[in-house]
């Protein structure tokens, strides 16, 4: 039986290992984070998360698991009702230039051209006027949007808008890039292109990225780490490192196997959360799943 288990872990799933990051070595450190909306709905409870510099962390979970709330707390757009979020050891108190939050919509300024949107961001950052144009062009080239510098947002397709938005984000040159389902509204084909583009950019710049998604494939395609979250109350149930080489291919067999595995974990999480939800949304369910996580990880580390 042990042999069978061993065989199972010999497969690509051995590349999925639990993550252990100590708080003192982390770039982003979240401890005991809790948030309630209107003092009632528990969006997050006792969330601990440490992210190293240069990691690409995907927050994955069903809707209502608090993944977006966690991201907004990192961005400083949401003031959590409990716990501490710090970056580089400093507690954050609001939005700051070291972090940039990208939304699901491209949210470009509609009256500015693509170049105008990027130079506006550069201006906001205090880049001298003379340098703005050249630097904007660099970022536009990096997202492969050359030739569309003078186009207005409404003349672009959804994917191109997102690329322009990404160019603007890169122009801000934040050390931490926070992304809230940025490719959620794109069609499947465009989404794959955007993922590959984002990956190639990340491989060049090695920014710290926290990426919210509910798409398992997307999370495993992009992330060096995948954090599984569960709803009611919003909490982290698994924290896995993905040791697949980059750049990854969307059809890669090992990737697809991992996707099946993680999708299974996610289903388990959802089923466990559901029956207990109306009765007691407090401690019992998270404890149970929190124990489940290490036991599974033990068997990974065994061989």
């Amino acid at each position, binding site marked *: 039986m042990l042999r069978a288990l061993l065989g199972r872990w010999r497969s690509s799933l051995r590349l999925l290992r639990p993550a252990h990051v100590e708080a003192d070595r982390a770039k982003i450190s979240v401890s005991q984070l809790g948030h309630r909306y209107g003092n009632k709905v528990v969006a997050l409870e006792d969330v601990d998360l440490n992210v190293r510099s240069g990691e690409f962390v995907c927050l994955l979970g069903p809707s209502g698991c608090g993944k977006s709330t966690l991201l907004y707390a990192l*961005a400083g*757009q949401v003031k959590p009702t409990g716990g501490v979020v710090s970056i580089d050891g400093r507690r954050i108190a609001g*939005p*700051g*230039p070291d972090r*940039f*939050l990208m*939304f699901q*919509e491209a*949210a470009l*300024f*509609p*009256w500015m051209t693509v170049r105008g949107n990027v130079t*506006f*961001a550069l*201006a*906001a*950052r205090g880049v001298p006027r003379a340098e703005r144009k050249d630097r904007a062009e660099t970022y536009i080239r990096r997202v492969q949007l050359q030739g569309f510098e003078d186009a*207005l*947002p*409404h*003349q672009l397709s959804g994917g191109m808008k997102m690329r322009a938005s990404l160019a*603007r984000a890169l122009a*801000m040159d934040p050390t931490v890039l926070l992304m809230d389902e940025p490719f959620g509204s794109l069609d499947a084909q465009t989404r794959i292109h955007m993922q590959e583009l984002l990956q190639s950019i990340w491989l060049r710049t090695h920014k710290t990225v926290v990426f919210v998604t509910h798409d398992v494939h997307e999370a495993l395609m992009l992330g060096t780490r995948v954090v599984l979250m569960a709803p009611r109350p919003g909490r982290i149930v698994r924290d896995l490192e993905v040791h697949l080489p980059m750049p990854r291919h969307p059809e890669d067999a090992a990737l697809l196997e991992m996707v099946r595995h993680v999708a299974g974990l996610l289903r388990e999480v959802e089923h466990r959360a559901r029956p207990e939800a109306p009765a007691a949304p407090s401690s019992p369910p998270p404890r149970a799943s929190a124990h489940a996580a290490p036991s599974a990880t033990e068997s990974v580390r065994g061989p």
Partner: protein
Amino acid sequence: MKREGRWKAYAQKLGLVLLLLAAWEGTSRLGVWSPHLFPGPVTVAESLGRMAADGRLWEATVRSMGRLVRAYLLSVAIGIPLGLLTARLSFFRNAVKPVVMGLQALPSICWLPLALLWFGLTDTAILFVVVMGSVLGIAIATEDAVNGVDPQLIRVASTLGVKGLRFQFGVLLPAALPGIVTGLKLGWSFAWRALLAGELLFVSGGLGQLLTVGRELMDVPQVMAVMVAIILIGITVDRVLFQTVEVRVRRRWGLEGAM
């Protein structure tokens, strides 16, 4: 095909105008009413031509438009900042806005008696009436436009770290511009109405006076001719100036089909 559709629309418009003119001419020729009281379009056109030829019409138009432009610019200069402040500052929202709304309920011509007492029979009195007629409308439209700005853009501005004047003039004002332009157009038509109402009641040159003189002389063709002139001027300014600006802005902002 698009072009054809446009020509068709023009043809239909022209057809209706011709039909109405023909009906008008026909009715006046029937002689149900005295031709002095109900002249046909030909007589009215002749009267218009006469007034244009002896310069009375131009003089009156220049005079009215001069007043209108001055009053309108003043309204814009007061109305837009007032609207912006109302949208952004709680004092203006809570205290000034109800006052603005209350005053808006007063038809602008009701300011005329007060204006005449304060400023006498001067141009200033008319300017005052016209400004009171359009400034509040512009302020309210501006406030609506600012409040209607896509919250996403405001959030993006905050993540970009855009603050202060760069936010007010670089993000908020341009984002609200399509709505503000609509407000300006509305303000213009308010001003145009207030001006003519004022000129009708208080004689001091201008198109309104031309109308009053026509009535006093029982010169119905002149009255109708001036009415036609007023309609034509109103349409021209609205179509040529405001429509063009509005369409341009909305197109650039991507609010209308790019075609």
